[in-house]
């Protein structure tokens, strides 16, 4: 087990900067998600850590040992690929045994280690099957067993759940998390699925255009995004743009929005405010009920999407469509076309300097 330090790593492919001065510290035993849209550099970063590709500049160390020029086979990492990459010419047990057998371990040790790894992923009885005889979820487990049986220092996962259907994916998320806790291995997980990143990881790094946009625990990134991109990529957010006033912003139409979270900005600068849809309360009356909901806007419901446990209202206001998510409490539902008042507190409003 070991932590991974990535320091000032850059990598270009021709004129395209795939990674631009990225630094992240992955602490020992943590579960990290690298999140970003396609082309953001998250897979490139993972491949640098794995050793399939070397950085143009910068340093990578695993367990304090500098590895940026060490080829993958000498880095003692475990990797799970998006398509699982199981060897089709070998049985499940031989697939799992591969890493130990190329190392020249003796047969009895290999057999017991392989059985242990297969038991850990709950496939103890399927060792003699061929990969093509397994379901997607089972292949996923074999790939995981194969990656951890060699006791690597770091476990790297490249969108490992991308090919599974939703129900199975949720099962595997729980399973993966359980196994990771059980063996306590530093895990770095590449995904473009924000929900997956939120539910599974201890820390999330958001990448965009080869740069690290923000890094921190899921709650921190969700509650205190530092950029409009971070706010909208991880979860939903309503973004208001205007001029900073010292304790919030003023919209072009003169409406003031108070914000108590995020950057402190001097008056006059361009700034944005981000508000999560579930933090906004929606009502038909204009009565100011309590002082905590200091922010108030009027609008008209243009659309309602019912999702069972909640409803999403799309509210038109001064040319902007705002999203409001309301839990299904059985209270009266609002109709499309209805005039409404939106209220939310400054504590739910994040002030972001204009990027």
């Amino acid at each position, binding site marked *: 087990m070991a932590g991974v330090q990535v320091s000032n790593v850059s990598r270009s492919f021709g004129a395209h900067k795939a990674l631009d001065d990225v630094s992240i510290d992955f602490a020992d035993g943590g579960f990290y998600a690298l999140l970003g849209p396609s082309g953001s550099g998250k897979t490139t970063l993972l491949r640098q850590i*794995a050793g*399939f590709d070397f950085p143009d500049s910068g340093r990578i160390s695993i367990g304090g040992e500098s590895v940026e020029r060490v*080829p*993958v*086979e*000498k880095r*003692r*990492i*475990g*990797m799970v*690929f*998006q*398509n699982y*990459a*199981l*060897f*089709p*010419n070998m049985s499940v047990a031989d697939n799992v045994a*591969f*890493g130990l057998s*190329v*190392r020249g371990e003796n047969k009895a040790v290999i057999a017991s280690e392989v059985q242990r790894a297969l038991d850990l992923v709950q496939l103890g009885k399927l060792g003699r099957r061929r990969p093509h005889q397994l379901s997607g979820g089972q292949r996923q487990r074999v790939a995981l067993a*194969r*990656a951890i049986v*060699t006791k690597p220092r770091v476990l790297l996962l490249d969108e490992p759940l991308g090919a599974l259907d939703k129900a199975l994916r949720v099962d595997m998320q729980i399973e993966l998390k359980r196994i990771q806790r059980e063996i306590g291995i530093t895990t770095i997980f590449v995904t473009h699925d924000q929900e997956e990143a939120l539910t599974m990881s201890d820390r999330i790094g958001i990448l965009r255009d080869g740069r690290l946009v923000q890094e921190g625990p899921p709650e921190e990134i969700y509650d205190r995004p530092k950029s409009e991109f971070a706010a909208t990529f991880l979860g939903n957010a309503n973004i208001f743009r205007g001029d900073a006033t010292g304790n919030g912003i003023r919209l072009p139409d003169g409406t003031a929005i108070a914000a108590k979270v995020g950057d402190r900005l001097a008056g006059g600068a361009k700034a944005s405010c981000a508000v999560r849809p579930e933090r906004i309360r929606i009502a038909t009356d204009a009565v100011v009920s309590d002082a905590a909901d200091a922010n108030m806007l009027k609008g008209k419901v243009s659309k309602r999407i019912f999702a069972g446990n909640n409803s999403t209202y799309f509210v038109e206001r001064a040319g902007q469509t705002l999203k409001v998510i309301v839990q299904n409490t059985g209270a009266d539902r609002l109709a499309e076309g209805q005039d409404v008042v939106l209220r939310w507190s400054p504590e739910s409003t994040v002030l972001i300097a204009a990027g």
Partner: protein
Amino acid sequence: MAVPGATASRSGLRSALPLLAPAYLWLTVAIFLPLSAMVFFSFMTDLPLSGKPWAFTLGNYAAFFSQSLYLTLLLASLRLGLEVTLWCVVIGYPAAYVLAKVLKGRSREAIFLLVILPFWSNGLVRIFSWAMVLREGGILDTALNAVLPFKINIDLMYSYPAVIIGLVHSYVPYMVLTCYLTLQAIDDSLIEAGRSLGASRLQVLKRVIIPLSLPGLVAGAALIFVPVVGSFMEPRILGGRTGTFYGTVIEDQFVAVFNWPLGAALSFILLAVVLVILAVAAPVLRRAA
């Protein structure tokens, strides 16, 4: 219970028949009829064409066993086939690997074209070109002596190596093509997975790439070995006096000695031997793959 499946396959066959018929008709006319005629000839004392008397005999087949020369030549031809196949693997497999896994885009297309080029040139022209290269005072000899500070004589013409060179040149594209197809189908992530598990490039090659590309190697080997064992053009032109093989003897029976029955009998013995070899090799290779 099995009725629905059976009707489905029967109706499938019925709709496939018009598509299959031309190919089968052509094969019947072009291969089966002449071949049956040859089987017929191989049991005759003489050709029934010149009006000479003829009778059925097993003598043509007996000739193979009564004279050790035929067996010696057959073994020489099998050895030739084996050697040429091996050289094709040694030369063709790495080339196929580079084409499939290293080169991309334009350069791959260009190299690919160069590999298949021998296919598009006339076989006889190809062989005579080699004759010009290999003989004493030929292109290879002159070029080497122009470069090297000391005098050497390169006269490979009319020798066993010349036959090997000519045959390998003719047949190596088969090996490159069949291996290229299987190598290209191997997902790069399998190679990466192997390396991430600590395997060196050589270990990945041995344990993952070669086993997965074995079907291509086997197909290429079968495509090369069978015609090489019966080859006569390259041995005759490039081998000269040393180029007497089983194939050239069969050719002699047809074009020089005009003993078609013996030629036909020798051909079928070769066919039988090759089939036996493939039948014995198939299960072994299938298990390995």
